[in-house]
């Protein structure tokens, strides 16, 4: 029969085409067990980088590390204070040479002991250029960093940091290349986590199922879909998991995660979509959390552009700051998940930590008349118009940028004084910033690495600092920061940092917009849910009923 012949040819053609390109697949992926009792299910996003402590710089991978590792210090989820965790003591006499004693009795979940070597090896790994660790700059204060991580990308001349020395089974010394009195308080950051020997012996194996020393162990990890973390029964620390485990489920969209929470299929959503903020309160009642996080949003300026850097422009910048009605924007667009900023730090630091409400003073007060006057005195907007650049792909930035522009336009009685300048992808946006191609103010967000005022100022505004995107530079500011870092008395150090902040204010090096909150919602099954200052849920304290 003719038809049959044709059909056979068709089948043949397909077979040939498929075979030629060898695009066979072996549908894999098994689903782990678990009966779900005492297990919290939580929304998650696919981590952007491999899950190594010194290579994880975003919140999704950070969640895992927070459950999997305990470092020398740990930040109190409420106060933000850096408390000793694995550190017995950290001593210094000159703010530059530190002696660290590690508590004995700690173990990794594979049975290896956590000792001084676990830390030194991990830090050396993180600082070594050949390992491509994106958080390497955290080790930049340690002596010998310029040898293991030459800034120009040339061949490294050492594999280990000369400033780190193991002096006993549980002690090691750290020599810094500058005075840095609050250095011990930075050690709560995930990049400073200890690593077991198995990390170095079988790296690929470790990556597919990481092993740490925290209250949870990884039961199974299907990349890109779900990670099942279970309570580690023999965990030696005091902050044992209060639940049987956490299932981190990757969601394609945070709206879907929210819908799943509503339908009772998910216990915890730690990223309530902007479009649902309006409903979250009525949907969830007191199961909706909205607490301050260590995130501040600012507008940075391209100081490499002459037009923005000439004398008198500080008046224009201050004028722009005063033309923004922060109160109204945070209320209508963000539904109070942002708080108008009045300094360059974050409320999570607390008064003692350096947060000073109102430090910005008049310069951050909304006053359209004064704004107009200041901008005119300063010589007007460069080119008659400001373009605020932002990435349009994530984070609903368009809404607030348009609102800011509206506010500026109203203040100046000019419809074209300010326009938004969307850039397609985040990567492209970052590219244009790093290549100094910005021609006007641009969105700058900062999520702190550790709750110290130093972290809000030095990386962002110190001359040529790693995140000084606008290339703002001021000798007075740099001098005050150096003095503050050398100061051993914390109160005095904070005071010096605040003086530096005032220098920043007087030149309006960046316009503070608002402090960002972390928002989350949870189901009736779970209780005692809170977010820490990094807007990561405190998983080990969640109770399941």
């Amino acid at each position, binding site marked *: 029969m003719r*038809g049959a012949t044709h059909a056979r040819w068709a089948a*043949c053609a397909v077979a040939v085409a498929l075979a030629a390109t060898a695009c066979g*697949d072996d549908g*894999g992926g098994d689903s782990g067990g678990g009966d779900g009792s005492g297990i919290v299910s939580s929304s998650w996003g696919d981590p952007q980088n491999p899950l190594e402590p010194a290579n994880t710089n975003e919140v999704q991978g950070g969640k895992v590390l927070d459950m999997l590792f305990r470092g020398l210090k740990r930040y109190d989820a409420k106060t933000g204070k850096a408390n000793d965790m694995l550190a017995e003591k950290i001593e210094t006499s000159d703010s530059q040479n530190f002696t660290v004693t590690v508590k004995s009795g700690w173990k990794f979940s594979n049975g290896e002991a956590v000792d001084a070597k676990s830390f030194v090896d991990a830090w050396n790994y993180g600082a070594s250029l050949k390992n491509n660790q994106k958080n*390497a700059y955290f080790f930049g204060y340690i002596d010998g960093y310029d040898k293991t991580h030459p800034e120009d990308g040339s061949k490294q001349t050492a594999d280990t940091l000369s400033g780190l020395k193991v002096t006993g089974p549980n002690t090691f010394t750290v020599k810094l290349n500058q005075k840095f009195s609050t250095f011990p308080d930075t050690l709560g950051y995930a990049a400073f986590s200890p690593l077991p020997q198995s990390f170095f012996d079988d790296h690929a194996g470790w990556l597919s199922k990481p092993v740490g020393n925290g209250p949870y162990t990884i039961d199974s990890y299907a990349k890109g879909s779900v990670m099942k973390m279970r309570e580690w029964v023999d965990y030696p620390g005091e902050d044992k998991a209060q639940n049987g485990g956490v299932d981190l489920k990757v969601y*394609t969209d945070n709206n879907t995660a929210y819908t799943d929470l509503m339908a009772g299929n998910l216990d915890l959503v730690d990223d309530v979509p902007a479009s649902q903020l309006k409903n979250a309160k009525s949907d969830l009642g007191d199961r909706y959390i909205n607490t301050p996080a260590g995130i501040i949003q600012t507008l940075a300026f391209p100081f490499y552009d002459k037009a923005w850097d000439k004398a008198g422009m500080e008046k224009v910048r201050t004028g722009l700051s005063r033309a923004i009605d922060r109160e109204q924007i945070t209320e209508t667009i963000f539904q109070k998940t942002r708080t108008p900023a009045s300094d360059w730090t974050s409320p999570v630091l607390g008064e003692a930590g350096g947060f000073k409400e109102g430090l910005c003073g008049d310069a951050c007060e909304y006053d359209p008349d004064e704004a107009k006057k200041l901008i005119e005195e300063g010589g007007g907007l460069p080119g008659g118009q400001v373009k605020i650049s932002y990435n349009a792909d994530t984070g609903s930035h368009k809404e607030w940028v348009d609102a800011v522009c509206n506010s500026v336009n109203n203040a100046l009685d000019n419809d074209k004084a300010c326009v938004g300048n969307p850039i397609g992808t985040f*990567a492209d946006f970052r590219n244009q910033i790093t290549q100094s191609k910005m021609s006007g103010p641009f969105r700058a967000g900062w999520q702190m690495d550790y709750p110290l005022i130093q972290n809000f100022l030095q990386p962002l505004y110190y001359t040529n600092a790693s*995140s000084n995107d606008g290339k703002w530079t001021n000798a007075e500011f740099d001098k005050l920061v150096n003095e503050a870092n050398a100061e051993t008395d914390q109160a005095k150090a904070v005071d010096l940092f605040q003086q530096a902040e005032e220098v920043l204010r007087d030149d309006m090096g960046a316009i503070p917009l608002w402090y960002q909150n972390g928002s989350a919602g949870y189901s009736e099954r779970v209780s005692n849910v809170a977010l820490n200052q990094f807007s990561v849920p405190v998983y080990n304290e969640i109770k399941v009923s």
Partner: protein
Amino acid sequence: MGRYVIRRLLQMIPVFFGATLLIFLMVNVMGDPIAGLCGDRQCDPATATQLRKEFGLDKPLWQQYVTYMGNVFTGDFGTAFNGQEVTELMASAFPVTIRLTIVAILFEIVIGIALGVVTGLRRGRPVDTGVLLATLVVISVPTFVTGLLLQLLLGVEWGWISPSVSPEAPFDELIVPGLVLASVSLAYVTRLTRTSIAENRRADYVRTAVAKGLPRHRVITRHLLRNSLIPVVTFIGTDIGALMGGAIVTERIFNIHGVGFQLYQGILRQNTQTVVGFVTVLVLVFLVANLLVDLLYAVLDPRIRYA
């Protein structure tokens, strides 16, 4: 016939290279992807250079393309930025999307053709008008509206289904997403079948068949439908490729970790390897599906011959 197939297969080669080159160029136009890897801060220059070297981004573009294609032919599609092999991503994404596509195509064939036959045979009757109106509504409402609406109604309000699909994505969980994905095409299939049937109903061979005294269902299935299916088959064939690559919206709404989601994430993160790899496979699917459609013509209508 054999020569025709071979010729078609040979024609695929330039199409394949052209398409991959275009995608490769387009993804590269978006700029340097490394900058997006370090969050809201600058990657330290040394690490950035090192990463560029590792991903081969420091070489000229033509060289990158040649290396990439060379690797593809040995089955190596490169590594995504999170350290996963792209082939590994494909192995997890494609089975899911293929299942989703099968569900969608089945809906198109079963419901679409059945409705088309019913309306085509009863032209002008209330059934016909009703279905025509319904298809118009389906075509004019965007997929994400139908998707979100069904998710909210069936998933949250009535609790019939789970609003999100589990990572394993078995067939039964894909029924509603499949229906949503198929909805627009389903409406087109109905309309195409209807027109074709209505036209052929008056053809001579149908009258002959009826005059011969053949039973009604045999007239419809063997004579009328078989000849009316050619435009429908063309449409469904090209739709396979469109459904597989174009499921981004549906996959995001229903939390399906398939091809659409991987592509979306790859584009956001400017991950050249992921995007080019997935699109390359999709191009192949398109080419094969089209060839199949052309060959199916001959099966359906013996008058069509390929030399």
